[in-house]
């Protein structure tokens, strides 16, 4: 029996000092050493009923991979994880573990849960660091001689493509942007998810035989129907995400200095505006107000700080408890000097000569829980005040882009523009079209998008086997 480490806290992961990292784009947390991983793995009790597994949307066999880590067999651990999760280096970094796998962990009852995410990351990083990681990619052993198209290269599309390729299909991914990865490359910043990791996963897909066509906006250059009828793709998976930014529709939103978080983060991440050798410009001024309380808001705020903004605010209309962001990101943001203006809602953006100079806000309070148990924010009368700011970043959510719907006759969507798909199979109102990820659920998480890609791949296989 391996020995058990009864320390109530998680083994700390080394991090860059907050006052240093808020001036660079290098990864915040630098990862476990082999000793740390071993120590943390020994905190797992290898529970028979595996409560943690049911908390993971793709049911990674957590105790069994952790036992392998404890025994020092990292390759085996990787094999166990990748049976159900093809992108562990990414999930280990960005999953909201505190509401998923780590929530039901028994060790969390009297102390902190086992650091499942950190261990998952450790295992994946160990494998990714091997020089032969890409060359070692297992190639499909069967061939079906059937073509399947995947639209969008976010986590949903990458997972579906990977599984379909393993099953022996000829898979082509069509991506609108000039780089594959979806939100993983244009949204989530380098300091949280290094691009090199996403790139390696994509190289691995290519090594398996998946073909990736960039700069292809489906619906414009070719429609889904044409892919099916003229190009011979027998089934199509749509993983186009929810990329359309919402604005608040308050006065002053078109002033210079107001961005959607998507624009701000795209300039920073995809176009590398933080690096002077790249041509894409970015503007933010000295004071930046980010409106919203999710991961997107945290990322935008922390990126602005790193670019050199003196003062960065998070403006959120509910309290910290309701913030949808990962707990770790909120914690990191605070450490880095981001100021939180909670229970605050913007009402107007003020400007001079067309440029932002401030934002009028009101204070909010939470109502008593309504029939749905949710406490609604309500305005405190007479609480208006002006927050001095030179730019405003709107991170208040996104919706699916209407392009696919508007160019695919008969494809059913709901009132929010999300594609209607069967929960188990991802099949849409058009039998050969399957969909999953944010395009179906609205903005959600990486792991849910991957899970949907997985289910759809299995369903496509069934559909085409008939």
């Amino acid at each position: 029996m391996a020995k058990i480490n009864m320390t109530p806290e998680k083994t700390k992961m080394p991090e860059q000092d907050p006052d240093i990292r808020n001036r660079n784009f290098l990864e915040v947390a630098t990862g476990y050493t082999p000793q740390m991983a071993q120590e943390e793995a020994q905190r797992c009790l290898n529970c028979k009923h595996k409560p943690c597994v049911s908390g993971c949307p793709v049911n990674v066999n957590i105790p069994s991979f952790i036992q392998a880590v404890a025994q020092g067999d990292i390759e085996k651990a990787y094999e166990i994880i990748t049976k159900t999760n093809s992108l562990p280096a990414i999930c280990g970094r960005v999953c909201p573990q505190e509401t998923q796998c780590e929530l039901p962990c028994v060790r969390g009852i009297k102390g902190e849960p086992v650091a499942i995410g950190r261990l998952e990351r450790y295992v994946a990083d160990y494998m990714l660091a091997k020089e032969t990681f890409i060359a070692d990619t297992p190639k499909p052993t069967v061939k079906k001689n059937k073509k399947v198209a995947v639209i969008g290269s976010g986590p949903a599309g990458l997972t579906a493509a990977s599984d379909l390729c393993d099953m022996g299909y000829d898979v082509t991914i069509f991506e609108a942007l000039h780089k594959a990865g979806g939100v993983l490359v244009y949204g989530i910043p380098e300091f949280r998810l290094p691009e090199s990791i996403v790139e390696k996963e994509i190289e691995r897909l290519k090594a398996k035989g998946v073909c990736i066509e960039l700069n292809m906006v489906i619906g414009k250059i070719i429609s889904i129907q044409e892919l099916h009828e003229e190009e011979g793709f027998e089934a199509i998976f749509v993983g186009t995400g929810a990329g359309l930014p919402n604005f608040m529709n308050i006065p002053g939103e078109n002033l210079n200095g107001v961005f959607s978080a998507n624009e701000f983060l795209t300039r920073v991440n995809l176009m590398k505006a933080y690096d002077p050798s790249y041509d894409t410009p970015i503007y933010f001024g000295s004071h930046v107000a980010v409106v919203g309380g999710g991961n997107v808001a945290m990322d935008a705020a922390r990126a602005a700080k790193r670019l050199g903004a003196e003062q960065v605010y998070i403006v959120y209309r509910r309290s910290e408890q309701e913030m949808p962001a990962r707990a770790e990101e909120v914690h990191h943001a605070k450490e880095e000097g981001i100021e939180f203006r909670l229970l605050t809602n913007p009402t107007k953006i003020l400007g001079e000569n067309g440029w932002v100079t401030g934002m009028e806000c009101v204070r909010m309070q939470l109502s008593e829980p309504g029939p749905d148990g949710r406490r609604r924010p309500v305005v405190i009368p007479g609480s208006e005040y002006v927050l001095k700011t030179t730019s405003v970043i709107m991170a208040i959510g996104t919706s699916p882009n209407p392009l696919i719907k508007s160019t695919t006759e008969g494809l059913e969507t709901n009132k929010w523009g999300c594609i209607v798909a069967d929960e188990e199979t991802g099949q849409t109102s058009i039998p050969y079209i399957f969909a999953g990820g944010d395009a179906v659920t609205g903005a959600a998480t990486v792991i849910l998008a991957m899970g949907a890609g997985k289910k759809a791949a299995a369903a496509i296989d069934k559909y085409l086997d008939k």
Partner: protein
Amino acid sequence: MYRILERKDLNSDVVYMKVDAPAVAKKCEPGQFIILRVDETGERIPLTISDYNREEGWVSIIFQKVGKTTYLLDTLQQGDYILDFVGPLGIASHTDNMSRVCVVGGGLGCAIAYPQAKKLFGMGLHVDVIAGFRNKSLVFLQEEMKRNSTNYYLMTDDGTAGEKGMVTKKLKELIEGGANYDTVIAIGPVVMMKYVSLLTKEYNIKTIVSMNPIMIDGTGMCGGCRLTVDGQTKFACVDGPDFDGHKVDFDGLMQRLSMYKEQEKHKCNLFRGIE
């Protein structure tokens, strides 16, 4: 990678390039544009598809050297490659319910207006073209425009070619003279489109303008290209680029276009070795 099949200088500032892009050529329609990225560190910039050939698989672009990216693009020669070239983007120009049309092009706008004039004229409509330039040396596409219009009127600010004066002067003259246009299509500098729209409003003639805000993705994902039309926020890359000239907030657009002026000027000067 997209190969440049041909390049020509149309005047000292404006360059024509024919690019090998069969999939784009197969689908594109007048009024649509592409977004390109010259190299790995480059910006994404939008350029209108000025012509295309579906059989031969090319599309052409005409661009004016105004900043870093367009100067960088200018360094490419026939046989060189453009790294990324994505399109066709935007909504194709509508051609319904038109019979007598006046196409007004200002400077570089003539390049954007050309495919529309060509299409409408090809459909058998009456198409008058008014092309305006600052002076004679800048005039381009004259022969092509002439071939694809019922009447072609050339205007220059200084009178060195065609008639002296602005495009609005000629447009007013033609309208007053009974040209009886049902549609005016105005493409050029924002101020020009604004004044054409103000003029045609007096005569209640439907006017279409082509908007050119700063863009990144061109797919509706960033909202950077937003502008106000009839009091509502629109994304030019997916809702446009054509809009009703009587409803566009031109002043707001001009303001947004100035957003990166200082930074762009700096990058451009560095690239050209000025300063």
